[in-house]
């Protein structure tokens, strides 16, 4: 994250980013490739029509946020999910730390969540002596470097393979070469061990479906599947804006989300979780599942006639992908957790 405290420092940081040849090349390549892959992914589809439908459905959901939360909570509690509502980021972090304490969880694996970035969840948990490991490859890399993400979908886009190789040399205590395929395999084995040790898994959610108390998670790596399967406890931190009435709403958003994010027709994994699933190692054979809904200003802005539009955001990151400023300097120069766009 950019740390400048005055305009002079800020200009120096921006100049530094402009002079970073690796960053400029990575950003340029991505900006050009993205346009083509997105166009291909949407080929033959009525994109504008689909986007309008989603905007209308999101607008309606935003207006019914409180009712959808009540419906979700009723349905989820019926099937054994513990549902919490946090008014602020601090409260969400406190609730999750309390769950960790109550379940005697010491080690945590986490899949990527922009909502957890918003609440600075990891800092809070680590300050309480808990070990938190990000399992999305890009998130793990930036966590090890003590950085924030520089892009919502590709958090480590600002780093080179050589920087990653140096980092993994430190992590494993053994020299690593910079071949990408090999570095990915090292992460595979190192993180596999982390999943096994973990007591608790934390995820976000791309969708919360009020009708059935279901959450939907999209990933390419499949890390959310391991995070929600191997540890005993699952906690999902979910913004209230992710609530939608039915699975149909979620399937419709999912027609746009991956195409806009990376130009993929669909992500490798879309996981629909309804209730605490089987867990062989538990006494009752079930997982313990908590969902923490985050308000943090969402309920207030949902009532604003103009600004409620911000909650339409489905967190695809497409705004950054086409932003000329982002292309020049990357995400870290924005001076905030968020890199660009309405809520990304």
């Amino acid at each position, binding site marked *: 994250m950019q740390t400048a405290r005055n305009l002079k420092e800020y200009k120096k940081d921006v100049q530094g980013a402009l002079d970073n040849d690796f960053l400029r090349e990575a950003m340029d390549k991505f900006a050009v490739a993205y346009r083509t892959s997105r166009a291909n992914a949407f080929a033959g589809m009525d994109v504008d029509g689909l986007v309008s439908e989603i905007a209308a459905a999101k607008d309606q959901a935003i207006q019914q946020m409180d009712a959808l939360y009540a419906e979700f909570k009723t349905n989820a509690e019926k099937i054994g999910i513990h549902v919490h509502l946090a008014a602020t980021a601090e409260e969400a972090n406190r609730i999750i730390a309390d769950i960790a304490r109550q379940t005697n969880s010491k080690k945590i694996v986490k899949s990527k969540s922009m909502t957890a970035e918003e609440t600075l969840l990891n800092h809070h948990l680590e300050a309480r002596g808990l070990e938190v490991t990000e*399992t999305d490859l890009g998130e793990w890399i930036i966590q090890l470097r003590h950085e924030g993400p520089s892009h919502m979908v590709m958090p480590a886009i600002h780093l080179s393979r050589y920087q990653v190789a140096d980092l993994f040399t430190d992590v494993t205590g*053994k020299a690593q070469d910079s071949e990408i395929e090999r570095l*990915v395999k090292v992460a595979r084995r190192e993180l*596999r061990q982390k999943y096994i040790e973990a007591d608790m898994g934390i995820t976000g959610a791309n969708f919360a479906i009020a009708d059935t108390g279901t959450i939907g998670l999209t990933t390419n790596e499949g890390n959310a599947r391991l995070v929600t399967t191997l540890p005993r406890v699952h906690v999902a931190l979910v913004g209230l804006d992710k609530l939608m009435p039915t699975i149909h709403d979620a399937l419709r958003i999912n027609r746009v989300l991956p195409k806009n994010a990376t130009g993929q027709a669909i992500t490798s994994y879309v996981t629909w979780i309804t209730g605490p699933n089987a867990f062989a190692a538990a006494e009752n054979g079930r997982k313990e599942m908590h969902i923490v809904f985050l308000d943090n200003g969402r309920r207030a802005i949902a009532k604003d006639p103009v600004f409620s539009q911000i909650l339409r955001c489905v967190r695809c990151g497409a705004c950054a992908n086409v932003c000329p400023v982002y292309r020049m300097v990357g995400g870290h120069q924005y001076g905030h957790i968020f890199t660009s766009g309405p809520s990304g």
Partner: protein
Amino acid sequence: MKPNDTMLDLFLQKAEAVSAIVTRVADAGEALAYAVTLCEQKEACQLLVSGCEAPLSRPAEDLCDTKQAKIIAAPGLPEDQTKTLDTLCQAKGIRLVGEGLRAHLGGIDIGLTYADYGIAETGTLVIDSSSEETRLATMISEIHVAILPQSCLRETAYAVEAELIDAMRQAPNYTAFITGASRTADIERVLALGVHGPLELHILIREDA
């Protein structure tokens, strides 16, 4: 129901576009033989699982050492097919595991499962993964082999919406959409397969079912 050729073609095209390996098989027997041959012949079906040849930290190395045999995990197969598979595996010295996959988190060679539906529009498999064994078999395997009855092919995700709602109303439920192998492009946007889950996805379309 026999899906029309257009739907099948679309499924093939979309699944192969995300590097899934799609093969049409006549029946269950052919599908089981495919999995065993794959385990026997493929380089991935070695004692050493992917990544274990790389320089690793001590705990990660120790986990690699826990894998001591060639393993096919096939939870949830019908009983008669499990028996047939077991005979085929024994002949090749492969260990067949149906449950207790938590004892094999170091890695397994092949996870063999059925898929409940195929979605042609995106080349996606829909797999009810409420069983922990199914979740593990499809995630900790080097290669996931999924058998898809041809009659279970649908055009879009909307076409399985009613079935999804039914499944979700019978909670707890864990349903997975799987499209291609586990992938990442997090280092320099270079595509790499097999970051956490399978390095390869093989789809066997059963023509008799």
